């Protein structure tokens, strides 16, 4: 028994890796479609956007790169659909250097989107008037403070090299305080900066959508009301997709909703692995392993 325990406890990582691979692959090919519920932190964010009126301006900060595409990009696409459907005007920017590629692609995809009847409902939207993509600028906190004083000063030109000063959208909302909220979709720690350097200074609501990994650290902000909504990870994005009703818009579940089964399978495997490891650990208690609390 002790030998078995030793073998199990020192299992080659590659065996674990293979099982993880299978747990993801099988549900993707044969989904089982578990139902899920919408959590209040996601609903709060959705409802804030839903409560805005046609013509209102919001800031979407796409602070995620291609590496976090799976978790964050579906959220961006769902949000753009929600905005354009309601006539809300997004000012999109990104604070990380590998952000513009995806932010631009998502925007173009949604603008070119065709519904079931072949109509293109967002075709008439104009850059600079109904939306604007400002692109990337280095500086992080400095940019947040900068747009608090004026968008056009910080971003003299947009991503398409158009002068921003002439844009109607910035006549209505020349600075951060004139917008209705900041929606930060982040795979890096920028929400920590958006609150003190951006939204608290401008006195506007903040919604954070982040990778699941950083969600726990933003709960204090949600609890304190500094963040109106908190959309964490693929599950949060799937919930948002269901609120926006992406299935009705595009005819099939959004990418986040589709991935949730694989998610469940891996979680169950990891928990089983932890339980098995602990059973054998108790059997083989004499040999402590490395790692642990400082």
């Amino acid at each position, binding site marked *: 028994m002790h030998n078995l325990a030793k073998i199990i406890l020192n299992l080659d990582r590659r065996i674990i890796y293979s099982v993880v691979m299978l747990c993801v692959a099988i549900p993707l090919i044969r989904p089982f479609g578990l139902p899920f519920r919408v959590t209040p932190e996601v609903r709060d964010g959705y409802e804030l956007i839903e409560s805005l009126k046609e013509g209102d301006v919001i800031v979407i900060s796409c602070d995620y790169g291609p590496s976090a595409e799976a978790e964050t990009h579906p959220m961006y696409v769902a949000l753009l659909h929600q905005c354009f459907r309601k006539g809300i005007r997004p000012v999109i920017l990104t604070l990380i250097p590998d952000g513009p590629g995806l932010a631009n692609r998502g925007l173009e995809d949604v603008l070119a989107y065709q519904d079931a009847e072949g109509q293109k409902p967002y075709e008439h939207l104009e850059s600079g008037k109904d939306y604007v993509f400002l692109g990337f600028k280095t500086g992080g906190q*400095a940019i947040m403070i900068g747009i608090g004083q004026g968008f056009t000063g910080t971003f003299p030109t947009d991503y398409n090299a158009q002068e921003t000063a002439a844009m109607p959208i910035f006549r209505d909302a020349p600075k951060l305080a004139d917008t209705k909220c900041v929606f930060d979709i982040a795979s890096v720690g920028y929400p920590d900066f958006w609150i003190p350097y951006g939204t608290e200074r401008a006195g506007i609501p903040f919604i954070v959508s982040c990778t699941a990994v950083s969600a726990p*650290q933003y709960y204090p902000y949600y609890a304190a009301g500094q963040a109106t909504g908190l959309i964490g990870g693929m599950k949060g994005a799937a919930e948002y997709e269901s609120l926006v009703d992406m299935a009705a818009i595009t005819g099939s579940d959004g990418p986040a909703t589709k991935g949730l089964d694989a998610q469940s399978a891996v979680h169950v495997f990891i928990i089983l692995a932890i339980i098995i490891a602990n059973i054998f650990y108790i059997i083989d208690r004499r040999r402590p392993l490395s790692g642990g609390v400082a």
Partner: protein
Amino acid sequence: MMFLRKQLPIILAFVIGLGLWLQAYIPHRTSSAGLTTFTQSWAVILAGCALLLGILSAVHHHWTKIKLRRQGFAYSIITLGAFVVTLVAGLSWWNWPGFGAAKMADGSLFTWIFDNVFTPLAATMFSLLAFFIASAAFRAFRARSFEATALLIAGCIVMLGRVPIGELIPLGGGHDLSDVAGWIMNVPNAAAQRAILVGVILSQVAISIRIIFGIERTYMGGSD
């Protein structure tokens, strides 16, 4: 000369640091103009120049490796080659509509490199975490002590509570496992994170004060 080397940086740090600190309390226009100048121009230019220096350093590192035929120099050739191709693609395939942030031309070589080389490499590197986290959980989540057990139990509850399966595990009273996961996130987690946050903020204030008053001189590279 000594003044330029030692005193001047400290004086500059004091003036700029104190200025930007007190600026926050002054609503007057001059004050926000100063802030704007620093954040929109100075900080951006300094960070940009530093990046250029960094790129020079990296190129030098690989160049030396190739020149001296150090172990693995072939990979440095690949790195430098990829660097040059990307650089040329990025600076020449862009539109040139005057100065200012320019548009990445759709369909350009640079966009193609971004979409088909950079993106998959970054995303795949990141996705390796799925494997690593499974093996880390397997090895590290062991009930070694009371604290470790708390970590383990909280981890398992949240893991189950945050996927659809958790909503299928009832706990009576109309609650299910995802509610417990929600409570853990919102209450004990928020409390601990908040306490850590307060400590970190105070440390940051302290370190900022040391920098402004010239006590902390790490950025000068220690003593001279």
